[in-house]
């Protein structure tokens, strides 16, 4: 441990013992993130060597991104008008679509999972619907709904409902038999069985579905904005492509990548809290 002490001189003040846990935390972060700068450097070198307009270097992209989105006043986190025009609508679509699909998927999933009769009739429909690639819906929806929010939400909901639906069906169908028998023996009401037994028991599956849906929702948000939108990150991406502005195009891609990363991280944090019983229960048995 001694040779690594100078690496974090600050930590010695907080804990006299040399703070091995703090050091370990730093070491873990380094071991996890070291690839990022390496990749950036390689990317920079590669794009400079290739020197084509289609592949601008990361520094060019960064400068462009700053110019487009981060030249506003500090009071609103430096976000420019352009950023405020395009990011919030995209996020709103993403979350509204995901939430709608989540609620609908869970409700339908529990119904299908618990009712043998319903499942027999609806299962074929579910598998038919799931097989349709959601972007294919767009040309069908355009004449139906006029370009706009409604159509974008429909696309997102239709595209991301499947993982939640199928996982919820699975979770609700395979509740531990002993748990259902306990509920029966102790005369739990219909509502208690649903809220206190079936749903909690299905949460691990439901969360797996929701997590998949979240990353799908991001993709579908972009796709829906490519075709029928006048704002949003996808719209900007399209506009940059039309204007033959590769740095702006790459900037939009980088923002989407970062957004996906942050969303996944946030989701993971929530999942850890909600499913703490599940992790712990699985560890001991």
């Amino acid at each position, binding site marked *: 441990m001694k040779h690594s002490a100078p690496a974090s001189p600050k930590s010695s003040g907080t804990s006299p013992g040399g703070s091995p846990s703090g050091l370990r935390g730093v070491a873990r972060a380094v071991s996890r993130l070291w690839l990022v700068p390496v990749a950036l450097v390689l990317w920079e070198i590669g794009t400079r060597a290739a020197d084509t307009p289609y592949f601008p270097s990361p520094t060019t992209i960064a400068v462009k991104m700053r110019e487009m989105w981060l030249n506003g006043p500090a009071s609103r986190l430096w976000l420019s008008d352009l950023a405020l025009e395009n990011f919030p609508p995209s996020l709103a679509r993403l979350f509204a679509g995901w939430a709608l699909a989540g609620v609908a998927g869970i409700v339908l999933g529990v119904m299908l999972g618990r009712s043998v009769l319903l499942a027999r009739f609806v299962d074929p429909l579910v598998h038919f619907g799931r097989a349709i690639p959601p972007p294919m819906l767009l040309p069908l929806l355009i004449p139906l709904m006029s370009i706009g929010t409604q159509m974008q939400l429909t696309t997102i909901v239709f595209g991301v409902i499947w993982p939640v639906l199928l996982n919820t069906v699975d979770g609700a169908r395979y509740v*531990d038999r*002993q*748990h259902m*028998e*306990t509920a*029966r*023996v*102790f*005369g*739990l*009401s219909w509502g*208690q069985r649903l809220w*206190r*037994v079936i749903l*909690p*028991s299905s*949460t691990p599956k439901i969360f797996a579905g929701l997590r998949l849906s979240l990353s799908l929702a991001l993709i579908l948000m972009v796709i829906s904005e490519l075709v029928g939108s006048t704002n949003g990150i996808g719209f900007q991406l399209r506009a940059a492509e039309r204007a033959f502005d590769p740095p702006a195009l790459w900037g939009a891609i980088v923002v989407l990548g970062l957004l996906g990363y942050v969303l996944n991280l946030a989701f993971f944090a929530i999942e850890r809290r909600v499913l703490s*019983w*599940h992790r*712990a*229960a699985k560890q*001991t*048995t």
Partner: protein
Amino acid sequence: MLEISNLTHTYGSGPSAHNALGGIDLNVSEGELVCIVGPSGCGKSTLLRSIAGLLRPTGGQVVLNGAPVAQTPDDLAVVFQDYSRSLFPWMSVADNISLPLRRKGEGRKQRARSAMEALEQVGLAGAADKYPWELSGGMQQRVSIARALAYRPALMLMDEPFGSVDAQTREDLEDLTLRVRGHHNMTILLITHDIDESVYVGDRVVVLSKAPARIVGDLRVDLPGPRDQINTREHPDFVRLRAEVGRLVRGMRTSPASAS
């Protein structure tokens, strides 16, 4: 209260069918504590599950308070043999116990108090806020006993309820069962493979044969006075009954003097 007539059950069909119950006739009157003993795998849990309406027997019927059991009857509690899987891991111990009490019309405060009381009875007052998976097997088993006790059913079915606890706790729980039965006039069916326990706790001991299970003995336990772990167990009647049950379980003939 409980009338079981010619109950049979066969698992599966064809060559792999397993005949678990081979015609059980049993009457239990209200307030009685009947112990059921029998060799492992003979069909004790199957019998209990048919009484609880969790399993539709292939033949015969179970009548509870005059009505044939088709669905799970009201006012019934079960301590499952597989206790660890019958507690809900997403709820605290106290919530596990108080959840069924809502049906009894108890308010939130009253439910919490009942749960605490039941936990104290099984010696787990400190575990109320823990989760089932934070407890040892024996503690989980006691929680599932506490849940059944707090529910105060008219009929309580216990499937090897003291299997995972240490000897001392086991004796405490046996005495607790006797006390509770006395206070609330519950009818209790207790499955056990411990012969001493069946004689100590039961008003009656019913012995089942190897599969397909049939009743090979039905002994009334008449022991003097309130039961006591030390004195009762050295009473000559206890010793005699224990030997009797032991012989029956092992499939030996009973001595003619004590056939009931």
